[in-house]
């Protein structure tokens, strides 16, 4: 074809993308995460001013020793650092699983919470709370704290396996059926949670509610240690599916024509999303909208290519959840606000704004 643009064509500078270089993006996000983490270390029910922070972290000792250093060290190493680490890692998992699911569905509004993966985890968590308090679960009561995250993880995984079984046939997966089945399963899981809320006593109700609204107050070193390998694996696996997710934007048939093993890509993505969401729910309950807000914001600035989007989502997800958790534990101190309320308060209007924008683009 001729290289001459016809006179009827629109000016070609409109819609042109200017994107920051990838290394700069990642370095900036990492710096912000570091800043957010330092801020989170200093504020809380027991304030630790910046000047006392190096000593509290054990970076250098003050002579003569500050009497508050021991208290600061206890607060930091036993409570605050594991909590910040958990918040950062869970935020990364939620944001990456959102980005992968959106790539898989070719829809910027897809989210693990949307297809019932989070709801399945929440149902199992609520069931474990009620069960271990009942006469039947008496023998397991001693390990109630351990059982709850395991149940949440199992619930998320089971939901995804059921979903996949419904949506797949003869090695092919229908994304439309996956999405619709997910909505139905989310409704069933929510009905189950409703039933458990109905039969729960006051104490159980408080536990279930806190779980459903999300909180990182139960974060410990042990819990953080279970998230770390999952996050590391997810980051490595992300690199191997990034290119495939890019080409999948053309549609499944086109991606196959372009050389992508589509069914394999879908299987890996689905397993990754369920594992990442399951681990996240098992640590902090249901925290919504991180998976929608983070990838969308990033696509506006750095573009949609997954090789950069996924690691950048991990960093921005970590920043947002560390920030939200810091806010959650300070705005009503010494009490704590459930983090899910905060993320929903910001995320839901954002989600609506995206819907309205899409409606506008569709000419409705």
């Amino acid at each position, binding site marked *: 074809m001729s290289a001459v643009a016809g006179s009827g064509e629109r000016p070609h500078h409109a*819609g042109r993308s200017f994107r920051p270089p990838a290394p700069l993006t990642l370095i900036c996000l990492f710096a912000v995460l570091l800043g957010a983490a330092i801020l989170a270390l200093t504020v809380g029910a027991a304030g630790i001013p910046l000047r006392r922070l190096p000593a509290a972290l054990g970076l250098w000792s003050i002579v003569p020793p500050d009497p508050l250093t021991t208290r600061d060290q206890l607060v930091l190493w036993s409570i605050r650092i594991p909590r910040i680490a958990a918040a950062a890692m869970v935020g990364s998992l939620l944001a990456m699983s959102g980005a992968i699911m959106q790539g898989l569905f070719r829809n910027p509004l897809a989210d693990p919470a949307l297809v019932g993966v989070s709801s399945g985890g929440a149902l199992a968590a609520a069931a474990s709370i009620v069960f271990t308090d009942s006469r039947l679960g008496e023998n397991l009561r001693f390990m109630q704290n351990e059982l709850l995250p395991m149940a949440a993880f199992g619930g998320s995984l089971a939901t995804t396996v059921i979903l996949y079984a419904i949506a797949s046939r003869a090695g092919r997966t229908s994304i439309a059926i996956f999405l619709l089945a997910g909505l139905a399963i989310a409704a069933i899981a929510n009905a189950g949670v409703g039933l458990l809320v109905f039969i729960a006593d006051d104490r159980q109700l408080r536990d279930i509610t806190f779980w459903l609204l999300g909180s990182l107050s139960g974060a410990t070193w042990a819990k953080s240690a279970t998230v770390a390998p999952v996050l590391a694996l997810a980051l490595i696996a992300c690199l191997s599916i990034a*290119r495939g997710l*890019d080409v999948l934007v053309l549609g499944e048939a*086109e991606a196959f024509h372009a050389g992508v093993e589509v069914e394999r890509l879908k299987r890996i993505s689905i397993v990754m999303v369920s594992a990442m969401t399951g681990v996240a729910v098992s640590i902090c309950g249901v925290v919504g909208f991180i998976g929608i807000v983070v990838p969308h914001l990033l696509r506006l600035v750095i573009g949609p290519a997954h090789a950069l989007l996924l690691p950048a989502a991990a960093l921005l997800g970590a920043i947002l959840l560390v920030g939200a958790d810091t806010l959650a534990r300070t705005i009503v101190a010494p009490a704590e606000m459930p983090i899910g309320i905060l993320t929903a308060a910001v995320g839901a209007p954002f989600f609506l704004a995206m819907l309205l924008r899409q409606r506008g683009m569709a000419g409705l």
Partner: protein
Amino acid sequence: MTAVIEASSVTFRIGKARLVDGIDLRVAAGETVAIVGPNGAGKSTLLRLLSGEFRTSNGAVRLKQRDIGAYAARELALRRAVLSQHVSVSFPYTVEEIVAMGAGDSSLAAARPLVDAALDEVGLNDFRGRQLPTLSGGEQQRAHLARVLVQLACGEAVHGPGLLLLDEPTSSLDMRHQLDLVETAKRRASNGTAVIAVLHDLNLAMHFAGRVVLLQHGKVAIDGGPREAVTAEMIRLVFQVEADIQYTDGGVPFLLPHTMRRAAIST
């Protein structure tokens, strides 16, 4: 001559319906074949079978002397490329990023010479930094053509000329770009690529193809050169349209449906 692609007694069923029914088709290197026929004749289904996207219910499709189902997706992509009628992209990828997707796992930097050449060929060099969803339908289709050209070039470098499949590629293009696309496809054929295109516009099909395959009810009604395949009688039988066939100075046939001729005379 050895066939690049060969369909033998290919049948494709959904339930009891036979969308493609016992088709035999051999296409050699450098051939240009237009698949035409009325709506529901099985044209696009046949193309999907030839691309390896659909598996046959009966019969076999062989690409370069090997069963098409035996190729892994990446191997297949290096031997055949497909341009579909309509591809919608929901994320703000740039034209350049979309075109580079034709280069498989190669980085954008490695694929740049091929991307540049393809963008130049489709006339979108000045649009490379634009987000694809902001382009018109025709411009988007040209970007996808450039992507397919990159894929074809990558395959050629490894395995020599392959197969190019076009599924109603001109539906969103204006007249000039329809002709440009046809010329692009012909250039590939002259390099030894086998080109098969599903086309609705019979005049464009006759202009493009050295061979026209007319499908009806999932079967080959006629298979031959444009002059033999597209006759007034065949148009009447298959499309239920009365038409005159005339010839250009170069001997290329073109047809004029009678209703259009009446309209032309009355104006």
